[in-house]
């Protein structure tokens, strides 16, 4: 098999056409997830920090494509604890594997790996920086449930300051003309640099610290994130706002029929369990969509179209 190296490090570098192409490929995998088109291929999953959910999703994707998987799920079991450089680890693994899927606690680790590696790298999260497969599955879920990525009212709720997934979504959505609402407590509001990014890329947005009925009833997508206590410098403020960003079933009674609720998971209490039975709850299906998206990303990294 001829291998074309095409790493996926950041959403920033994907064109609109490439994003749409990958979503279409993922649709084909959803229709038929089991395709043994990677027999003889070895996929390495190098998780320098644990992330069970992401690793299982990638490894399931590789297995359903017929590939063999090698790797580790925790850097404590590798030579990096002996002081081995990332470059050396990548060079060693690239002797064995055709593609490397890596998660690392340092920001920029995946880009550096892609520069030194002779085989493609798929970034499965590098610190607080990028997590492109999560964003792709978010886009896939929005498109699948709404039929489009343009002309939607998308509400991002919770920790918009540190939330990597919401920042990446804005980066990807610069190609599409949807409208955003940023709903967050004052301490965790969307950083200025991302608001400037929205202005520069003509992304319409409003912001508020009120998670109100008006907001819910005017949304096609509500993307919930966790408001974590440890993010607050002022615990008084945490105590005063912690219950204001919890979504409960009774809050959805006048929601649009097409509303879908997304969450990158794991959730703690920001979506009440009573929402799970509401047809708008989509977060578990969203996670399942990650499988199809990751099948598409692995194949694309190896230059395989279906």
């Amino acid at each position, binding site marked *: 098999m001829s291998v074309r190296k095409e790493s996926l490090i*950041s959403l920033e570098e994907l064109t609109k056409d490439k994003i749409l192409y990958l979503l279409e490929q993922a649709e084909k995998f959803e229709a038929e997830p089991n395709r043994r088109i990677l027999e003889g291929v070895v996929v390495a999953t190098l998780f320098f920090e644990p992330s069970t959910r992401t690793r299982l999703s990638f490894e399931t994707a590789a297995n359903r494509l017929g590939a063999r998987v090698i790797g580790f799920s925790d850097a404590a079991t590798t030579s990096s604890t002996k002081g081995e*450089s*990332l*470059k050396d680890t990548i060079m060693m693994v690239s002797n064995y594997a055709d593609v490397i899927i890596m998660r*690392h*606690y*340092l*920001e*920029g*680790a995946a*880009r*550096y790996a892609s520069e030194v590696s002779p085989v493609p790298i798929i970034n499965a999260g*590098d*610190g*607080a*920086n*990028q997590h492109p497969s999560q964003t792709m599955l978010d886009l896939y879920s929005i498109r699948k449930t709404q039929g489009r990525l343009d002309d939607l009212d998308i509400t991002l709720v919770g920790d918009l300051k540190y939330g990597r997934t919401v920042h990446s979504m804005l980066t990807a959505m610069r190609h599409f003309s949807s409208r955003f609402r940023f709903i967050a407590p004052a301490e965790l509001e969307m950083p200025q*640099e991302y608001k400037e990014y929205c202005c520069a890329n003509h992304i319409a947005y409003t912001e508020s610290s009120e998670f109100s009925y008006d907001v819910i009833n005017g949304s096609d997508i509500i993307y919930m994130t966790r408001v974590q206590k440890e993010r607050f410098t002022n615990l008084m403020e945490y105590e005063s706002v912690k219950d204001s960003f919890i979504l409960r079933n009774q809050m959805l009674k006048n929601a649009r029929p097409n509303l879908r609720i997304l969450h990158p998971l794991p959730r703690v209490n920001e979506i009440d369990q009573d929402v799970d039975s509401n047809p708008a709850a989509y977060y578990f299906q969203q996670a399942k969509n990650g499988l199809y998206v990751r099948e598409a990303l692995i194949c694309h990294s190896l230059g395989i179209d279906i």
Partner: protein
Amino acid sequence: MEKTKLMVAALENGTVIDHIPADKVFDVVNLLNIQNMSTPVTIGANLSSRKMGRKGIIKIADRYFTDEEVNKLSVIVPNIVLTTIHDYDVTEKRHITMPDEIHNIVRCPNPKCITNHEPMHTTFDVIDKDNGTLRCRYCNKEIRKEDIRLL
């Protein structure tokens, strides 16, 4: 202007660094390690300048600077003028501006950036030349001019 001329004598051979922002003169001295040079050096600080209000100028006899040194200058003091002199004649006059990319000159201030943990080069994209704002190619953090530190 007469005063400036008196303070800064003509060079036979060497380099003149002009249009240095008044508060950056000694940064340039440190960057080029001028305090340890054995050739004659004239340092003018807080001189009147029509364009800048106050400026600095440094004349260094019998010394020319490498591209690497000039690149470092371009990051710390963009928009200076570097004049090289041979036999009392100006042989080159360069307006030094910040490049589009900066390789292996600046340290990323983000402690969680891979560049601070691996034996590797740093690379920054200059995203705003007017304000001197850089972005790390690896961790994507933006650095303002006042936070720039050299390797």
